[in-house]
Each structure stands twice: as structure tokens, then as C-alpha cells.
């Protein structure tokens, strides 16, 4: 009888821990990666891209590496490309979006962009591309986060 009770308690604790873990995983929110590229010009008038990568999620930093970041012009429209490498051996699901800023640093069509799914198989390198919504864009920000 005593042993049965012990088993019951142990089983209960294990079950509670498991369910709590599932509950947390199901409702947790995740931070992500932000990387920016800004078009500017040097003294000779050549176009240069200032780059900046911010990881505000330690788990994403372990999973993902930003290998390359570039911006080019298609006519007067700015295009951006980022090369991402998975550090994980399993398939990872992310979502990403490009935000665009004008020369004054104001966001264009603020909040209108949508997230796009990104599937990275183990150790895969993949590029993601974005196109500016209009010719005002001179700076972009790539945001990556886990698939909620």
C-alpha cells in the first residue's frame, strides 16, 4: 500500500513536469535575429553597404549564422539578399521578413510587411531575398524568428 502511494506520487510529479514543459513550449514566445543593411556613399561616390547583425535570441544564435548580406539596385528599387547557414543537423523552421527604411530612417509602409516561412534542412545554406516596396527605400532590416 505504501509502495503504491509512493509510485502514485512519483508518477504524478513526472506527469506534472511533463505537462508543464509541454505547456511552456506551447505558449512560449521567442525573440529573433535582426540584421540591417544601409546604403551609403563613400568620398569617391561609390556605393557601400553598411552591415549590422543583432542576435537577441541565444538559441537562434546557436542555430543560425548569417554568412553574407548584400544590397543592390534594380533600376531605382533596392534589393537585398542574406545568406543564412544552419548550424543544426536537424531541419529548422523559421519565419523572416524584410523591413524597409527611407533615407531619413523612417520605415516605409510601417508594419505592412508579412512574415515568410523559411525551411532550413540540416547544415544547409540558403539565401533569402527581399525587394523594396518603392524607390524611397535606402536601408533594410532583415528579421528572423522561430516559427512561433
Amino acid at each position: 500500500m505504501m509502495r503504491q502511494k509512493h509510485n502514485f506520487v512519483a508518477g504524478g510529479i513526472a506527469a506534472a513536469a511533463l505537462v508543464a514543459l509541454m505547456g511552456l513550449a506551447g505558449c512560449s514566445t521567442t525573440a529573433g535575429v535582426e540584421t540591417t543593411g544601409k546604403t551609403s556613399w563613400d568620398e569617391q561616390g561609390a556605393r557601400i553597404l553598411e552591415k549590422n547583425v543583432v542576435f537577441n535570441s541565444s538559441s537562434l544564435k546557436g542555430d543560425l549564422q548569417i554568412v553574407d548580406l548584400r544590397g543592390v539596385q534594380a533600376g531605382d528599387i533596392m534589393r537585398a539578399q542574406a545568406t543564412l547557414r544552419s548550424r543544426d543537423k536537424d531541419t529548422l523552421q523559421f519565419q523572416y521578413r524584410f523591413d524597409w527604411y527611407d533615407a531619413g530612417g523612417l520605415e516605409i509602409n510601417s508594419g505592412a510587411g508579412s512574415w515568410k516561412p523559411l525551411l532550413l534542412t540540416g547544415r544547409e545554406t540558403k539565401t533569402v531575398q527581399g525587394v523594396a516596396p518603392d524607390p524611397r527605400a535606402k536601408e533594410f532590416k532583415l528579421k528572423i524568428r522561430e516559427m512561433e
Partner: protein
Amino acid sequence: MKNGMQKLLLVTVIGAFALGGCASTMQYGDAGSAKPISTEFGSSDLQQIAEAMVDSMIIFPPMVELTSARRPVVSVDKVKNKTMQHIDTESITDSIRTKLIRSGKFRFIDRTTDDQTIEELKTQQDSGLVDKKTAVQFGQQIGAEFLLTSNFSEIRQKVGSTTDVYYKFTMSLKNLKTGILEWSDEKEIRKVFTRGTFGG
């Protein structure tokens, strides 16, 4: 045996509490979220298609050249929906048209509001309310130079607990004078749903 039953009961009760903690909440969601909910055509699919089409069109080199000096007038055709779902395809073309207008590269005519336009012009011409000098005359509208056409298809496969749906949206820009397709692109989306053991 009784012990097992008790454990099961406890797990069920705790499970119900844990689920209760996550379920039945009301909040604003992210309108741009890419999280898929089902294999049915969803909001993120619409956004992905619209963005892919617009991005492709405005950076296509002949289009860059065409739109560098002028803003061509385009008309949008209804999407040929060959999927098995009832989809508001006008919503897809509306998103595409809005983005193209906002890019500043194209201008559009809208045939869906022609009835209202005719009614308004008739009122201006015939009601006697409007100053003839400011009344808009019939036959002044600009004809479209291009027609934006699209096809939407789906391939659905179901094996056991897995449902695999492949969507393909194809769009073309037809030169109405020459009949030539000046631009075309397609966007593919694959959604896979695997039913879990607990029906999740």
C-alpha cells in the same frame, strides 16, 4: 491496476489544467504571421503569393526599363481558380494591384467599378445638378496597355495521416496590342499536415 488508473486520471486532470492555461484566450494576432494553421489556403499564403509576384515583376529587367520613364496602364483579369477550394481570388489580385500601385511603377484601371462610374457620369450629364463645364464627359478614359492574368491550381495528396497540398499561382503580363507576354512568374507553396496520435 488501480494505481495505473489513478495516474491516468491525474495526468488527465493536470493536462486539462495545462491546456486550459493556453486555450480560450482572445487577443489580437499578427496579421503578417507565417504560422500555418491548416493545409487550406490561408492569409500567409495570400501574402506570400502577392509579394512574390510584385517583387518579381518590378525587378524583371525589361519591366525596369519599361517603367523607368513612364507608368504603364494595366488592367487586372479575374484569377482562374482551379483549386478545389472556394477562395476570394479578388483579394489576391487586390493585394497585388495595391502593391504595384504603391511601388509607383504602374497605373491601373478597375473594371469592377464601371457600373458606378457610368451612373455617376450620367448624373453629372443629365441630372442638371452639375455645372456643364466641370461635368466629366464620356469616352475620356485611358485604355489599358497591359492585362494581368493569373491561374491558381492545387494538387492535393492524402496518404494515411498525412495531407500534402501543393499550390501554384502563375501570373502573366500580356501586352494587349501585340499579344506578347512581357512578364510571367509563378509561386509555389507546399503545405504538409500530419495528424498526431491525439488528433492534434
